[in-house]
């Protein structure tokens, strides 16, 4: 029975508290008059919306680059893909997958340069990733103003140039995944089959990759770079590949988010997307140097569940909106917890 004890220890008390808290919220929901079916539907939807952004963190954690605080680079690549897709007026699945395809070359370029940079600054990846992400988002702010987009739905009406801060995907590929094979039960519950299917496929593909020769090498580099090197693996190359993958998954993640949310958010919008993703994977049980698909799924579900349920339930109880404060404390608290834990790798 030692397994239960150690697995609780491994899981960590903050995660258990969050888990219990969420269960309490679900139990309280009907009591305070919040519809459970609508809540679950909401949680599922938000789960699908965010899951791939969380998944994007896996490759870099596995390769030893740590938490990708520079995920904003991937998000920007996704924004480029989706705005171009809209510019070309691609609609439906063509528009959605076109956006992903168009974001691929940007992801590769950004990821390659970012990866090369991180290889030069080993040990400081997280702090540097954060500021590289922040400053890159600022450059892109200027770019959104000056790039020659012309679709009238995207540019400021009065100036005729410069992209709007939010662009609706309505009429292009709004809810393209959410509505695909969606199952509606009753008035309040919708099961977003297409969305969850897409998330599942992405997770499966990453899982497959992690089992390939390259994926195996990547994990070994993260686990013990010296071992990997002694086995003839080029550690820097593996790290760069992981950064490119992470960046591309970030791009896919934001496009999936946009189709569900209904808006492409530009300018400084990528910045606040990063921390929740990191918090989610950590809540799911990942550490700074190990992460799995299970961590992604559990973490996204717990974190988004928390974010969905706290406003509705807590607000009903206290008659005040504490969700923002709870979100800040929980998400930053869990990151802090992960950073201050002694590295588990025994050497």
């Amino acid at each position, binding site marked *: 029975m030692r397994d239960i004890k150690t697995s609780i220890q491994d899981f960590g008390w903050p995660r258990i508290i969050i888990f219990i808290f969420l269960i309490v919220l679900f139990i309280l929901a009907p009591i305070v008059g919040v519809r459970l079916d609508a809540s679950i539907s909401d949680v599922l939807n938000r789960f699908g919306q965010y899951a791939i952004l969380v998944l994007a963190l896996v490759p870099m954690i596995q390769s030893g680059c740590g938490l990708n605080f520079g995920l904003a680079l991937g998000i920007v690549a996704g924004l480029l893909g989706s705005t171009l897709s809209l510019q070309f007026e691609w609609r439906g699945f063509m528009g959605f997958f076109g956006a992903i395809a168009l974001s691929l070359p940007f992801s590769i370029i950004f990821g390659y340069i970012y990866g090369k940079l991180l290889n030069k600054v080993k040990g400081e990846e997280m702090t540097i990733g954060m500021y590289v992400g922040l400053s890159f988002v600022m450059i892109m702010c200027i770019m959104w103003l000056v790039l020659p987009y012309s679709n009238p739905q995207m540019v400021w009406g009065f100036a005729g140039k410069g992209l709007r801060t939010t662009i609706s995907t309505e009429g292009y590929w709004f809810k393209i995944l959410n509505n695909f094979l969606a199952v509606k039960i009753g008035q309040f519950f919708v099961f977003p089959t297409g969305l969850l299917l897409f998330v599942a496929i992405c997770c499966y593909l990453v899982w*497959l990759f992690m*089992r*390939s*020769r390259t994926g*195996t*090498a990547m*994990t*070994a580099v993260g*686990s*013990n770079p*010296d*071992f990997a*090197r*002694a*086995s*003839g*693996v*080029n550690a820097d190359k593996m790290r760069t590949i992981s950064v490119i993958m992470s960046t591309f998954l970030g791009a896919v993640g934001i496009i999936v988010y946009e189709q569900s949310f209904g808006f492409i958010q530009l300018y400084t919008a990528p910045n606040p997307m990063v921390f929740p993703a990191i918090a989610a994977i950590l809540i799911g049980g990942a550490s700074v140097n*190990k992460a799995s698909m299970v961590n992604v799924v559990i973490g996204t579900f717990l974190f988004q569940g928390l974010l969905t349920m706290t406003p509705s339930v807590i607000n009903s109880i206290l008659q005040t909106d504490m969700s923002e404060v709870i979100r800040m404390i929980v998400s930053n608290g869990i990151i802090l917890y992960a950073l201050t834990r002694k590295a*588990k*790798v*025994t*050497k």
Partner: protein
Amino acid sequence: MGQTGPLLSLKNISKDFYGNVVLQNVGFDLHEGEILGLVGENGAGKTTLMSILFGMPVIAETGGFTGTIELNGQEMHFASPFDALDAGLGMVHQEFSLIPGFTTTENIVLNRESMKPSILNDAFGDRMSTLDRPEMKTRAVGAIKKLGVKLDPDMLVSEMPVGHKQFTEIAREISRKNTKILILDEPTAVLTESEALILLDSLKKLAREGVGIIFISHRLREVAQIADQIVVLRDGVAVKNVPAAGVTIKDIASWMVGRSISGEAGPREESRALEEEIFSVEHLWVDMPGESVRDVGFSVNKGEIFGIGGLAGQGKLGIPNGIMGLYPAGGTVHLEGKEISLNNPAAALKAGMSFVSEDRRGVGLLLDESLEWNIAFTAIQIHGQYLKPVLGGLFTQRDSKAMEGLCKEYIQLLDIKCTGTKQKAKELSGGNQQKICLAKAFAMKPNVLFVSEPTRGIDVGAKKLVIDTLKKYNREYGTTIIMISSELEELRSICDRIAIIDEGKIAGILPPSADVAEFGILMAGATDSPSKTKRQSAAEEAPRA
């Protein structure tokens, strides 16, 4: 020496780490103004003895020790190194313990700075006193003068040559008011010859002023030159405690490496006729920190077990690490007539060489992964084995079944104690971890296998098993093995020939049957070039191409 009793007296010191005895009834006296040379091979117990003397917490954490330490006839109990310092012991460790951005002066008086009280003392305590820099400098200069060397008190440590750093450390120890005993652990290892001479002179000067000195060194020539008394440790026992007068380097060397107390090692191999050269190395240099190789050449015959020995820090570990591409290296290496490109681990592995690293936990294992991963990983990456095609060969996936099969095979073959193939490597004992490392190398089906320190840090029973496994593997598959070890007896029990490395070069190659003293002399670096060739005996170095 006016005083009658000894300054420091160690009596019946014994210490074991979880049943593994490392020191047994060791005792010696140190008098005022005396220099005591403490010599012994790696693992002879010198470091442990000094840790005990200094009250290092590691000793108490591992169950303490037995025996007594007396200072001026009074029994001492040091709870921490600071107690030992207060009692008048000074220690210069192997690693520099200096602040790089501080000057000589600041380092000499580190945490013992002269201070002038300030108004904030009452509120916030002594640490708010300001430093009295002129006074600090005076003290530093005094210590430097006492040492009798030239040191700029205002120079930054980061800009100093290595020798000056060493002097700064010694100056720091003697600048304490009450330092009566100075212990130096391998103080000349990083110094040039001339710097070492200056150091020896200043130590003699200190001794004349009444300081008792314990001088630990591998360099027997220096020990013979400077010491008044010589204590030789071997396998945790002080085998000799003699006045230095009349003792030759050869004497010390043979005492040092003489037969292990635990008795004769197994029967020696009869010399085998192995003719065909399979592997050769010429003018190899390797930049491995602390184990740099300068210019090494040797050749190994097919099916041979070739041993490489030598003292720590002389470069024996650098040889396999350099050849396998783990550290920057140069020179030429041929395997079966083909030149191997250096600085490229993948090329070395692909060519049919395999390496069991001395750094088992650092390089040898993926501690947080399963045994399957550990054994199969290199074969997956280099040979593309244990992969299965998916989607009609579009890409490949790890073949868990094949990996499990491989792992099971070796668990059985090497008798690895584990709960299953999915167990994490970090959960195994040292001996079983070593077997995993061997299995990883065997799984590559190498032509030439390098094993570095295969028995380091594992218990006695496991040691024999590992050695037997290597021998069996050599005999059954004809695999050529190059084994690097600090334990001479181990090399002599299994190898066909043994090369001894000294200062990054081959000091000589001997047959396992050669006299222990001969090995000792080669190891101790007592030879100089002209006589070196003469001492090389019958087994002789293979002719160089």
